[in-house]
């Protein structure tokens, strides 16, 4: 089982995601509220098997896409999945859909799907 990174600006959802993913089989879950916080734990983050990134992290703040590019620049080899509660016409969400080798899930995502992600994350590290 692998470590999972969660980047989500809503603190309740951030904690709940980690609880669910751990129960689903993730070895560890690193939760961050901002891209800056994520960057501070570079070593742990880059060793993870799955990154769940919220697309929009609040007005005027770096987005999940910024986190994606930072991860890719540093050679992150795990899977990246974007979570979004926003319209698919939203430019950030559209940009996320156009990225190669990523999935975009629209909130609210069924909890069973998220748990399945935790189970699958081990093989992709």
């Amino acid at each position, binding site marked *: 089982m692998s470590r999972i990174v969660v980047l989500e600006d*809503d603190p*309740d*959802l951030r904690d*709940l*995601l980690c*609880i*669910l993913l751990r*129960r689903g089989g993730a070895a560890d879950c690193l939760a961050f509220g901002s891209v800056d916080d994520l960057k501070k734990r570079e070593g742990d983050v880059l060793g993870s098997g799955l990154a769940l990134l919220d697309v*929009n992290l*609040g*007005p*005027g*703040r770096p*987005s999940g896409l910024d986190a994606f590019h930072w991860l890719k620049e540093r050679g992150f080899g795990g899977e990246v999945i974007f*979570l979004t*509660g*926003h*319209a*698919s*016409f*939203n*430019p*950030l969400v559209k940009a996320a859909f156009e990225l190669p080798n990523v999935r975009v899930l*629209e*909130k*609210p*995502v*069924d*909890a*069973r799907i*998220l*748990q399945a992600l935790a189970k699958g994350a081990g093989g992709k590290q």
Partner: protein
Amino acid sequence: MRAVGRESVEGPGMAYERDRAWGSALVAALLVMLGEAAFAVMEQFALSIKALLGMRLVHIALCLGIAGVLLARRRDFTVQRSGYAFLLVGLPCFPVFWIAEMHLAGRGESWIPFVGFKLLIMGIALLAPPMVWMGFALMGTLMLEAALLWLRFDPHTRQLALGWEPWVTFIYTAISAGLLAYRARSLRIERQFFQARAETESLERLARLFLAVRDQANTPLQSIEIASAVLEERFPEAGEDVERIRRAVARLRDLTRMLSGFEGLMTWVRGDESLDAHALLERLQRTLEEEARGRPAGPPA
């Protein structure tokens, strides 16, 4: 939208129409003033009639006063008030033209009748404010005055008149009426355009509101979805209650997906991607309230 009073809000395109009516009245006042001054100078060489000169000077003073009021109190001038200012500028022309034509005709020399009439009729066609009926009424009355004058001239005086009058004045009136009718049609199209644009903007604001509501709802819905799954695992005996929560979440999910249908009505602009949904909702609410205040009351329920 532009507030013109404590409680009233102007409808779409009204500010533009008001400004244009004000501009028409001001230009009319200035041009009539210039015309009267020019005729007053010319008549001093040909006629030297003190009464006519006095009337023209009074008319110039009136136009100057109207122009001054228009400039000093621009914000107070509605379309209607500007229309009345335009009318006030034009009305003194009727007695002035009558007296001038009678004197010119009485000289027993060849002359071109109704020059002032034709100038004024053309000016009305080009400058009449959005109260179009007023323009047609002024033109019609001027043509009628020219016809009455012509009927008063004796056959010898008519022979001295140059330029196939009164027919030329009638033709001027007809062409000017056509021009004014075309302007009225353009004005109607402009009004429809402003109305359509306002409706499109309202729809887009509504779509933005729905999407902001949806975006705000999705994250808490996700939290409920996960929390209910975690609770179900921890407390298997609460399975039935958790299932109820799940069904409620599913219904809300369907609702938020329905709201997604409004995405196509929105034009995304730079900066929209990271909008503060709370601020957006507050702003939209204020805008819709303002619009509702400016709208005429609907029929009683």
